[in-house]
């Protein structure tokens, strides 16, 4: 009974504010005459009409696939190069300034540059996402590999760990908290780049469609697009956190143990 009650209380705590906010939006926008702020009810009706009539497949899915392709490539190349650079002090010191410069270039300026080289198609957009996402992943991997505990490295050496298993059982897990930090930064960058590469130059895709609605003053449709992008951003970050918390369970455990064993007392 008390467990039931505490569960109900938790659900209440999670849902209270969102419900209040949505209700306020619903009520204040009902019968709104403001052209830019249509009633929420109208936006929600439009949402179904706009996105569930084929646009999911024709616009949303291609965008997400391009994001997945660019992001995955960035992760593979970034972690691979990061391990190579992080393992050698001489190499790291040689390339670090160039990498820092690469990271400092705001990734959106890559859109016009890569349009010039790779045209307007899928490959340009995937390249944009790849070349923007790679920097945080690469630099965080370098930092993570560099900072692998010296005692752990010595332990691996005294037990004569082979190169492959050292990578698999020692370097990668030890660097994984840093790598995930890089992957997280890269994910939000990737979504931004997915959208603006389509806003800048495309004939389909999520970013393109939303800009079309805005240019055509199809306001409820535009709002529905903004909401969809929000849901995608939230969904992807939720997915990422699930993967991360599985992969880094040991790391969370250590952090809790160091705080004296009491889980997140606020």
């Amino acid at each position, binding site marked *: 009974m008390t467990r039931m009650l505490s569960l109900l209380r938790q659900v209440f*705590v999670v849902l209270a504010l969102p419900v209040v906010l949505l209700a306020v939006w619903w009520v204040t926008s009902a019968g709104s005459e403001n052209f830019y702020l249509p009633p929420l009810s109208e936006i929600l009706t439009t949402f179904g009409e706009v996105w569930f009539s084929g646009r999911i497949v024709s616009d949303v899915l291609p965008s997400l696939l391009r994001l997945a392709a660019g992001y995955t490539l960035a992760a593979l190349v970034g972690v691979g190069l990061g391990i190579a650079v992080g393992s050698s002090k001489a190499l790291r010191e040689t390339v670090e300034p160039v990498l820092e410069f690469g990271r*400092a*270039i*705001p990734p959106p300026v890559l859109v*016009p540059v890569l349009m010039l080289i790779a045209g307007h198609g899928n490959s340009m957009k995937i390249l944009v996402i790849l070349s923007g996402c790679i920097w945080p992943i690469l630099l965080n991997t370098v930092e993570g590999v560099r900072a692998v505990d010296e005692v752990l490295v010595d332990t691996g050496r005294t037990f004569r760990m082979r190169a492959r298993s050292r990578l698999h059982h020692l370097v990668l897990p030890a660097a994984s908290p840093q790598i995930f930090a890089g992957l997280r930064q890269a994910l939000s960058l990737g979504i931004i780049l997915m959208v*603006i590469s389509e806003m800048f130059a495309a004939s389909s895709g999520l970013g393109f469609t939303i800009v079309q609605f*805005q240019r055509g003053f199809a306001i409820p449709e535009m709002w529905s697009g903004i909401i969809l*992008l*929000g849901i995608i951003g939230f969904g992807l970050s939720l997915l990422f956190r699930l993967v991360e918390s599985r992969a880094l369970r040991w790391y969370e455990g250590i952090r809790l143990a160091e705080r004296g064993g009491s889980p997140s007392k606020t």
Partner: protein
Amino acid sequence: MTTVARERRTPSWARGLFGFVVFLVMLEIVPLSGLVPSRYLPPLHEIGEALGAAVSEAEFWIAVGDTLGGWGLGLSIALGAGIVLGLLIGSSGLLLRFTASTIEFLRPIPSVALIPLAVLMFGTEIESKLMLIVYAAFWQVLIQVLYGVRDVDPVARDTARSFRFGAWSRIRHVVWPTALPYVMTGFRLAATVALVLAITAELVIGNPGLGKQIATARSSGAVETMYALVLVTGVIGVLVNVGVRLVERRVLAWHPSVRREVPA
């Protein structure tokens, strides 16, 4: 015990300089060799000439000022709002619990989703750029401040309460010093994100600034100028990173989290 130095090694700055020079030389040689057509990537000296031409015009400096102005203003608003709201929400267990789900939902919404709305409401006025910058940077600050407030040592909190500190001096003397390193982390992340969104707004919406200059250079076929401007944004990015680190080090000079970083 662990500081094992090898005999007579090349200093790290020399290696870094060497790496950077190789990078620049490649930017010159690769287009000249025809490996990459020079209409895609002009050789470095042509980019340099275009840069020289650009910096001698007032237009360039106005664009730099526009970009940095929007960045600075947006960052300041996000910092102020993030710190005030973070301290407010973080200091109250009730507020923290009830806002958690909403914050977790709003935070990952990509700020570029607001572009169409910003265009409709403000066109290419600075407000549309600020809207994107503030939305993106605000969450970075807020989240870090919340972490920081949560990190306050319970013993310090109890000490303050046992001496009957008022709410203001509790925040001033207990919460704020603990949260400061987190605030600086938020500041660092927000500064980078704000620059990205400033350039994004200029590229996509067409707010005046370097991003717009790049878009113009591309559409008018001035490839060298486009690359020159891209390199300038990189330099601005580096300066922002370096500047932010300097501020961070100054502000936190007294703080144990910085002092601990000195190699033992």
